[in-house]
């Protein structure tokens, strides 16, 4: 049996990696992928606690998180395509105008 | 050491089953290609492969040898690692899915309580093999083929999923074994309760496996060969294998969900118990065919191969005469028989239909199949409620639901034309 704290620490590492990705990468697609990493870290936590507390609530919330991730990916990628079409770039630091 | 044996012990039997299933599957895949060529030839007033072995029976082996010995070309500026990895992903995904297929009550590699979900999930990983292969080839034809393929697979997976859901509603379990057992206890295959869902599943599986009339990703007259245009030799063989194995896999899913898996036709009627002897008849017929052919041909080597085959088939026949063996092979025999029926359908379609255009294909998927599949799930639920809470008889309640779905389908078709 693996103690819950192991899962929590693993999730924390994954979370941090995701955060670093979001903060440092220029390519918006990879930024979106880093967000997926963060969401997955959250899910690991939820499931680990769910097991420890014998409650199904964690599973349900993990499902909601996955739903959210799907919605986020769809909208995010939609925005990205629109952006690429208009600006010819998907680099975060080149998209620095509020209006064009 | 003892610890290691303890650790591995529960997995030993499973490993043996995996190996057996893998070997048999590979053989079936090889001979499926042969069967396709022969059946198509029959449909097209040709004779098909005849040269290698009697009636070309050794052709698959020659084909495999040829593909293995061919040069493995990697296009210039291709992403080499991804290019090499992609076909492996395809093959692994589809073979891994077979771990969950219940061939017979005594031949299930593993049974998981979310079996069908896993099966669909794992097999859908094969899509990465396609899109990565198309991308890594650094060729526009490959890329366009891969994009088409992906769009098609994603679209039809939705309809496929809903068709599966209506069968799951009837079975009220996700376990593959449980689904077959539900059909056994009801005494009726789900195809007779949910014919519309069965049709949707069949159409969607043709699209999922990129077969005619939905074989756009490989539309020879437009895109040369689709995502695997740049592949050759062994890697092409892997894609080829993945494609044919996927065909077998969707047939297995349909068999389990709708055609009663390993159940014999009329399994609960004693009058039809004579059907239990069908395996013997089939093997005996194979023996007879080999003997007749061996007598007809003048070619030594062919006679030799045919004699070997006849001996093998005769041995099988004798083995099956032992009641215990006959009982043990029943499940696998009927399961494979139904799967082959499906595969024959796939091949027949290929010989018959022209190809849809891409926009038409998408329109059928999104504007027709998916709405009908969703409506079917709803009506199936209504049927079940009528049965459980309003004491309707079981079969008519579900048939009312089917009629409702058909009505919607007709309305949709009418609106379209």
């Amino acid at each position: 049996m693996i103690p819950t704290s192991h899962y929590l620490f693993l999730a924390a590492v994954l979370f941090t990696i995701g955060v670093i990705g979001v903060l440092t990468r220029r390519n918006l697609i990879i930024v979106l992928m880093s967000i997926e990493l963060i969401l997955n870290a959250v899910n690991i936590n939820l499931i680990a606690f769910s097991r420890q507390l014998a409650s199904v609530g964690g599973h349900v919330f993990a499902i909601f998180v996955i739903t959210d991730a799907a919605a986020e990916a769809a909208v995010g990628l939609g925005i990205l395509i629109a952006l690429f079409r208009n600006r010819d770039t998907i680099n975060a630091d080149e998209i620095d105008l509020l209006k064009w | 050491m003892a610890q290691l044996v303890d650790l591995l012990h529960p997995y030993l039997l499973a490993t043996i089953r995996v190996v057996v299933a893998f070997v048999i599957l590979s053989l079936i895949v090889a001979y499926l290609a042969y069967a396709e060529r022969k059946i198509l030839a029959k449909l097209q007033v040709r004779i098909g492969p005849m040269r290698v072995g009697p009636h070309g029976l050794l052709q698959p082996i020659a084909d495999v040898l040829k593909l293995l010995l061919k040069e493995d070309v990697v296009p210039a500026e291709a992403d080499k690692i991804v290019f090499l990895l992609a076909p492996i992903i395809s093959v692994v995904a589809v073979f891994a899915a077979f771990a969950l297929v219940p061939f017979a009550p005594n031949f299930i590699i593993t049974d998981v309580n979310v079996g069908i979900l896993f099966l669909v999930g794992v097999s859908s990983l094969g899509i990465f093999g396609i899109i990565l292969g198309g991308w890594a080839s650094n060729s526009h034809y490959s890329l366009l083929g891969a994009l088409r393929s992906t769009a098609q697979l994603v679209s039809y997976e939705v309809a496929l999923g809903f068709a599966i859901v209506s069968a799951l509603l009837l079975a009220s379990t996700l376990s593959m074994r449980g689904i077959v057992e539900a059909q056994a206890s009801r005494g009726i295959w789900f195809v007779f309760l949910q014919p519309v869902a069965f049709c949707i599943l069949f159409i969607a599986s043709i699209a999922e496996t990129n077969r005619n009339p939905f074989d756009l990703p490989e539309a020879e007259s437009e895109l040369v060969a689709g995502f695997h245009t740049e592949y050759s030799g062994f890697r092409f063989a892997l894609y080829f294998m993945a494609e044919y194995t996927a065909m077998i896999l969707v047939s297995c899913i349909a068999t389990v969900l709708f055609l009663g898996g390993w159940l014999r036709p009329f399994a609960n009627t004693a009058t039809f118990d004579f059907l239990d002897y069908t395996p013997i008849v089939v093997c005996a017929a194979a023996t007879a065919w080999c003997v007749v052919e061996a007598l007809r041909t003048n070619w030594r080597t062919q006679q030799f191969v045919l004699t070997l085959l006849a001996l093998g088939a005769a041995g099988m026949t004798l083995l099956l005469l032992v009641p215990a063996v006959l009982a043990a092979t029943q499940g696998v025999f009927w399961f494979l028989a139904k799967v082959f029926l499906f595969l024959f359908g796939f091949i027949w379609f290929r010989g018959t239909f022209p190809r849809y255009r891409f926009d038409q294909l998408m329109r059928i998927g999104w504007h027709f199949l998916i709405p009908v599949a969703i409506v079917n799930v709803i009506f199936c639920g209504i049927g079940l409620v009528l049965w459980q809470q309003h004491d309707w008889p079981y079969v008519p309640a579900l048939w009312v639901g089917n009629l409702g779905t058909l009505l919607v389908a007709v309305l949709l078709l009418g609106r379209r034309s």
Partner: protein
Amino acid sequence: MGEFGITQTVLGADEIVLNMGPQHPATHGVLRVKLKLDGEKVIGSECIIGYLHRGVEKIGENRSYMQFAPYVDRTDYVAAVSNGLGYVEAVEKLLGIEAPPRARWVRTILAELQRIASHLVWLGTHALDIGAMTPVFYTFREREEILKIFERYCGARLTTHAFRIGGLQYEIYDGFEEDVKTFCRDFAKRVGEYEELLTGNRIWLQRTKKVGVLTPQQAIDLGATGPILRASGVKWDIRKAFPYAAYEQFEFDIPVGENGDTFDRYLVRMEEMRQASRIILQAVESIPSGPVMARIGKMIKPPPGEVYHSIEAPKGELGYYIVSDGSTQPYRVRIRPPSFVNLQTFDTMVRGHLVADVVAIIGTLDIILGEVDR
């Protein structure tokens, strides 16, 4: 794909140029088509031809009238008999002679058999382009029967050189009538089979109806002839308008279409095969006796002058314009190939359709590159 490949990414650009051919399974030989695409929609096209140019017309200026006849077989190589017929009749017209009736009857039979064979090739490959792989095997089976008749008659299957200036070189072989009748009897059933496979097929209808529409006016303006013109609803057939060979002797209908789309062209060609079979049956019952060769000299030396003679080849109006300077060799030969002229309608047909339809439209044009490029 080189310089004519997809010039920009799939998504970024509004217009992309896609190059199809000359090495492409669906372009029926060495046609090269440059398509201007907006997404998957075709907004313009350009046909680039000449990959199969062999200078047939120029060769004609350096051969005697008799020697040139085999060369015309090699323009439209799936309808060699029709090409030969047009050429020998043009030269006969130039000489002011006429082939004897028996020869004209046999010419009609062979030319109509060739029409069926040519349409069969078209049907098989057209269906194959649209993704039905089986019809091509059936149609080639029937075509084989026709080619066998040709072979028995003149020893060649494809580039037959069946006729001679002034008539036929060979008397028909024993059993010719029987062979032809047997073929026509079987063929009636077989056409029904093809129609069963395709005509009512939903997918076939969806792929062909309203695809590549050509209005009657457009068809006339672009000079389209043959099934393409008739499918647009214009009842024009050289066999009726300027009868040649023995066509005025037989009863047959000219099928016309209504919408001028790919499906109508399919129906028109199917019906033409039936009508051809009808003509053959009438002709084979009534072959007159007599010689097969008119009396012409050993040396063909037409008087100075010019002649234009055209026939209804399987693909449309096939015309020969021959100028004679009184020597043994033509001064100028000009072939009006139906495929070449019909190919002009391609751009009109293809605009606004999808890339997948381009394949269907090339198929429905029934072009032979040997004839387009000559």
